């Protein structure tokens, strides 16, 4: 034996057998609720402040309560046994425990119900410790009165609880990865190594994405071409990966477990269906072109970093460059794009160092606002660049650099022209520098690829105000979309260094694998459901739903109608009704609030259940003929 089980604590956290699928229990309520109430002393924690005997007596007098008991620790094995036994012996079909907080202990008691054959959603928790005995230690009498009200509320709700089903859905163990750059290839590779089949969809004729346009990569001057080639070879060699190049997603149907993508292949000149259980978005980003800024577009000596990169890789640069000026934050942190481009500082440093190493006599000036190199290695990289003699000059946005003279010195080697200069006010120096340039390189931020918005609409996932894909949660779900089954990595999310993009791609693969690893997934029972006959198809619920969990389907109804063609007798009309995908619904209940006809029901927190609690809370105890105990 591996001793695994034996080492596990027995009570909290609550444990279930290793099998992830839990036992479904069919037993629901009978005709009439038979409620058992179990009141916990929690040692001194409750019993030390509240009159538990009085609580038991008053609970016993409540409607539908057939049993009320107390115990020293309801969460102990003895306490749980007491519940299990009582369910069997007294034919309980609802269980109420009054003790601590559902946030930590609800699953424990739900499991006890499960084990005794009672659907776990027929359990109701009443918090008389954290929100009662512990906060009213000085006034046991009023605290007991409050606890009695809370128990009455719990019992009132319990009487209306319904057994809920946790829907199971078989998962198609395949992934579709959209975007065949480094991120997409990495994600596809990881999923394939995990044993899942992957369709990798790339718009361009070749895999590799934006890294294909680069020369070398920081921080170690890896050849971009070699890295891409190696990755492409690995992807091509992986039998589990099907690569579709010159292919674009044109439609997406389905949801987690069963997506169907329609992919238009220019290669095969046809639309191919791609089936997948999950989708990974890795469509990348591209360099923004600063048309009209600093002479870009009409002055051939003004280029972008990516254009410099291409020239470096083709060797298409004059050998006698004497002065190169790089301007950072062109179109970033300004009215064009309010954000920082994240990668541009390092790109500039790397290219500056290459220029400097190739020709130490060449002056390289980097005009920056803030040097965005964070972490360990990048900061060193910055130091290296300074060491090599790259000059960093800070400018402020209210006095941006200015280009005078229309042409760089390298513009025409035969006939010298008056040199172009970049004027920059160095705030830290308190002076304006005039820096001659042969080549002016503009560092611009990455922007979303064209088509990103359309893809987002197809997938029904959001993009942010800049057009980058918007993750489910900025802090804790950076690689997920709010809609389950769709994941995100690389610069499609936000400009990323290659290292980061690769890490995110692996991460997105892991997130996707959490779904694909299961033969089936199980929803919570607490999901909204639709009473179809009441649904008017107005779509207010879908507007309220953040998770894309509600879709509308056409159903046909036979009607004796309609209007003009009176004599036609029975005819069929199409009406739109809402359907809730229990795999996507998170049970927040927002849809039920906006539904005009009560067609949408927020299970486990229905209007009736809440109303019953409200009434029970405010009911004068005397009116109920309830036993007051000693109060």
């Amino acid at each position, binding site marked *: 034996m591996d001793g*695994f089980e034996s080492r596990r604590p027995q009570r*909290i*956290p609550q444990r279930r057998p290793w099998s992830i699928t839990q036992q479904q229990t069919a037993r629901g309520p009978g005709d009439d609720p038979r409620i058992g109430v179990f009141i916990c002393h929690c040692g001194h924690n409750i019993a030390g402040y509240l009159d538990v005997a009085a609580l038991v007596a008053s609970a016993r007098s409540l409607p539908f309560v057939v049993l009320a008991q107390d115990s020293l620790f309801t969460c102990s094995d003895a306490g749980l046994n007491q519940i299990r036994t009582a369910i069997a012996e007294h034919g309980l079909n609802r269980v109420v425990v009054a003790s601590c907080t559902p946030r930590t202990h609800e699953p424990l008691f739900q499991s006890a119900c499960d084990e005794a054959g009672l659907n776990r959603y027929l359990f109701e928790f009443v918090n008389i410790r954290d929100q009662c005995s512990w906060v009213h230690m000085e006034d046991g009498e009023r605290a007991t009165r409050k606890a009695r009200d809370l128990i009455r509320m719990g019992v009132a709700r319990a009487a209306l609880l319904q057994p809920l089903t946790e829907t199971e859905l078989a998962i198609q163990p395949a992934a579709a990865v959209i975007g065949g750059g480094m991120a997409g290839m990495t994600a596809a590779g990881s999923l394939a190594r995990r*044993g899942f089949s992957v369709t990798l969809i790339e718009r361009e004729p070749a895999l590799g994405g934006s890294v294909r346009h680069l020369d070398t990569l920081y921080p170690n001057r890896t050849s971009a071409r070699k890295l891409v080639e190696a990755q492409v070879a690995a992807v091509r060699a992986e039998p589990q990966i099907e690569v579709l190049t010159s292919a674009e997603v044109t439609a997406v149907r389905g949801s987690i477990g069963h997506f169907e993508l329609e992919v238009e292949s220019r290669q095969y000149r046809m639309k191919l269906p791609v089936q997948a259980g999950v989708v990974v978005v890795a469509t990348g980003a591209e360099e923004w072109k600063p048309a009209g800024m600093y002479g870009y577009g009409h002055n051939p000596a003004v280029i972008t970093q990516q254009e410099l990169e291409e020239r470096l890789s083709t060797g298409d640069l004059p050998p006698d460059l004497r002065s190169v000026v790089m301007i950072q934050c062109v179109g970033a942190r300004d009215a064009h794009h309010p954000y920082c481009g994240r990668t541009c500082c390092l790109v500039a440093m790397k290219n500056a160092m290459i220029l400097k190493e190739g020709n130490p006599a060449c002056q390289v000036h980097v005009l920056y606002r803030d040097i965005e190199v964070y972490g360990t290695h990048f900061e060193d990289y910055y130091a290296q660049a300074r060491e090599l003699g790259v000059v960093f000059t800070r400018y402020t946005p209210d006095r941006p650099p200015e280009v005078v003279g229309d042409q760089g010195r390298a513009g025409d080697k035969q006939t010298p022209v008056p040199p172009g200069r970049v004027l920059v006010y160095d705030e830290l120096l*308190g002076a304006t520098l005039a820096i001659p340039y042969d080549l002016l390189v503009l560092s611009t931020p990455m922007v979303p690829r064209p088509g990103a918005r359309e893809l987002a609409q197809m997938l029904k996932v959001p993009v942010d105000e800049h057009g980058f894909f918007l993750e489910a949660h900025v802090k804790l779900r950076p690689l997920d979309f709010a809609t389950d089954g769709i994941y995100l990595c690389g610069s499609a999310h936000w400009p990323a260094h290659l290292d980061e993009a690769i890490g995110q791609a692996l991460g997105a693969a892991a997130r996707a694998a959490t779904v694909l690893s299961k033969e089936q997934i199980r929803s919570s029972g607490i999901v909204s459901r639709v009473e179809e006959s009441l649904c008017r198809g107005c779509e207010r619920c879908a507007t309220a739903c953040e998770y894309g969990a509600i879709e509308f389907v056409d159903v046909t109804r036979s009607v004796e109608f309609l209007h003009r063609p009176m004599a036609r007798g029975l005819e069929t009309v199409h009406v739109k009704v809402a359907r809730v995908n229990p795999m996507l619904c998170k049970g927040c209940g927002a849809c039920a609030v906006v539904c005009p006809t009560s067609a949408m029901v927020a299970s486990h927190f229905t209007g009736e259940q809440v109303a019953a609690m409200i009434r029970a809370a405010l009911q004068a105890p005397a009116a109920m003929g309830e036993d007051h105990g000693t109060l």
Partner: protein
Amino acid sequence: MNEVLVIGAGIAGIQAALDLAEQGLRVHLVERLPSIGGRMAQLDKTFPTNDCSTCILAPKMVDCSRHPNIVPHTYSEVEAVEGEAGQFDVRVRKRARYVDETRCTGCGECASKCPRKVPDAFNLGLSQRRAIYLYFPQAVPMVMTIDPEQCTYLQRGKCGLCAQVCEAGAIDFEQQDLLLDLCVDAIVVATGFDFYNPAPLTQYGYQRYPNVITALEYERLISASGPTGGHLLRPSDGQPAKKIGFIQCTGSRHVRHNRYCSTVCCVHAIKEATLAWEHDHDADSYVFYTDLRGSGKGFREYMDRAGRAYGVTYVHGRVAQIFELGPGSDSAGETHKPVIRYEDATTGRVAEMAVDLAVLATSLVPAHDAPLLAGILGIDMDEYGFVKTEPFSPADTSRPGIVACGCCLGPADIPQSVAQASAAAARAAEIAWELVRPRHREKG
């Protein structure tokens, strides 16, 4: 079923464990402290959304503790690792809590009776706890721990009040450390970081001046669940702090301390300044920076907004020194007021600013026992003492089968750590899967 060890249960370790467990792997989650949660549990809010840290972390902690595929080993440490990918033999020491985890309900009755008060490490010594304590209110597991160094009974055999009041009978003075032998396919290292102790930077007067505190101490002060109930009070006199100076790069980007950039401090300071404003709209904050760095998603907009609307002023210039207002100074009656001296870079002249509170953005440094753990795991560390990885292979350490994520790799913010954690989970799962795919693995 294949098993994986995750070392460290901060947000990175928790995420890695959940991603692995959800892929059907069994996870042993080892945490040195009495509760999972890590550094994030000490934070009040998180940038750039000002999300309440506990609100978003606690559900993940609970998920972790309830997951049928995860066994948390809290108050435990890895002592030895042998073998290779697919067959690591790991020894874990589960330290004695002197409290039976299966009985304790975390009610705290014992702590209320315990006579021994000691500084509370979770609150960085800003408040006191007892010798028997809950690590923090939302601790998972919600069980008490006895500090053997401080417990009068364990030290001198007297007292035992806790055992007397515990109705669950959970106190066990006889409890011994437990040694667990695990066999795992892969190991995820997520041991996080420590904050640099700024004492060597004597020019900032940390610990000499009461109103010079670190950013993490500030975090506890402003946290609603912290020692002052979320009121930003000066340690010297308990008066509200109205003017706050944030001293960036305390120990970072400094060749004699830590030459790297600690990545999170700029936005972190701005968040703390924003919180000061949220608590008190009259509060003014000054952030003294070298470069104002914030290239993460939404960070720059966050910084700009703070500067525009939340009373935050950015001052370019690394602080040279902090003084205290002396007795003979202009503001009579004001004692312990830190005075920040810096070069006003726009004029090139030295300037001084008196503040109520000076907050040091101390570097993120490798965990103090990182070298020890590196030895146990047999993995290479980089020149800064963080776990070493190769470019473009961000999760893999030098030893096959061992992967890493979070701040043990170097300073990272929360979303980076979470993404890295998922990446490490992917690599660990690949390793475990590689072993079952050929289906020739022998029984161990």
